[in-house]
């Protein structure tokens, strides 16, 4: 059974809840209309062979509604098929059911999403921060969080300061010309006089 066949099988089972499968570079994606049903869809996907949860990730569509997209990458270890499930979550709600009863590995994936993006997973038994420390007040992977960070202080535990950017952020250029040009560097803003280190970069193109 190919990934497309199993995608159609999931579609047939849940009907209007699931979008038509789309294919991009060989990866089949299904969009789940109601995030509250994601655990049911995942339970069924596991029952037809998708026994491995590769990853859960989240997207911040900042400025759009719904703001969050949560993405599940599933794999059937027996035949190597992979399938991708997406579901949207609104900013007001910022909550969807856990898939931890389906795949136990979801525990830390969901904690990471909660830590970085602030999306909660209802039914998760241990929804704590995993990378930042308990008491850190922000969700750093959100688009409206500055790269340099915000100052915080939790006395005796940890603190953060605003990072000096000094002309940053550091930008890489997609190019294959040479490794020096590919390095992340402070790029001269458009229209400004290029510095000695940026002589090869004029109007965002390498000259």
């Amino acid at each position: 059974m190919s990934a497309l066949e199993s995608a159609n099988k999931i579609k047939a089972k849940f009907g209007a809840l699931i979008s038509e499968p789309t294919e991009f570079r060989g990866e089949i994606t299904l969009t789940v209309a109601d995030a509250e049903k994601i655990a049911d869809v995942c339970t069924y996907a596991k029952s037809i062979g998708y026994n491995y949860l590769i990853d859960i990730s989240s997207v911040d569509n900042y400025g759009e509604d719904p703001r969050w997209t949560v993405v599940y990458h599933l794999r059937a270890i027996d035949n190597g098929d992979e399938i991708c499930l997406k579901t949207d979550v609104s900013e007001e709600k910022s909550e969807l059911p856990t898939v931890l009863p389906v795949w136990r590995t979801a525990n830390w994936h969901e904690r990471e999403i909660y830590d970085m993006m602030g999306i909660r997973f209802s039914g998760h038994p241990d929804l704590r921060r995993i990378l930042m420390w308990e008491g850190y007040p922000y969700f750093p992977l959100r688009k409206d969080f500055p790269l340099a960070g915000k100052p915080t202080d939790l006395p005796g535990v940890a603190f953060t300061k605003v990072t000096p950017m000094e002309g940053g952020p550091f930008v890489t250029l997609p190019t294959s010309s040479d490794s020096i040009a590919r390095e992340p560097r402070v790029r001269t803003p458009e229209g400004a006089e290029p510095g000695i280190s940026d002589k090869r970069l004029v109007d965002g193109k390498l000259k």
Partner: protein
Amino acid sequence: MSQTEYGYNSKIEGDVVLTTVDAALAWFRKNSVWPMPMGLACCAIELMAVGASRFDISRFGSEVMRFSPRQADCMIVAGTVTYKSAGFLKRIYDQMPEPKWVIAMGACASTGGMYRSYAVLQGVDNIVPVDVYIGGCPPRPEAVLDALIKIQGKIGKQPILQGTVAAKMLNLQEK
């Protein structure tokens, strides 16, 4: 010739070295720096190379890497210090007995390096006093040995007995 005869005719066997107690103690101390390898990232791999046979840190008397801060003189901060790890790095430094020194090894420990982000402490000198900074990402083992030699030079110049009870007992002059 006369010196050789003095040595042979003396009641003391071997060579005689004249020095001050302070200089001798500093010499003992600087040639036996016990590092605390604070390995946090890839610099720690280079630090392992410094300790291994090719570069051989024991040539400089620092082969006794202590993983307990209670038994170490010199903390080598090797790697990226995140804000989350900054707290326990400070605590480990506080647990080291005096006198103590710190080497910031590599770009990350010195300045935050390429990690200009919310998560990374911009230089370990924000929380502990650093004696020697080593550039590089990561630095070559030779650079670490050079830093160690610089630390040894610093330790060798630091007075040990002046102002202490032992100095008063030995009747050393205050400078």
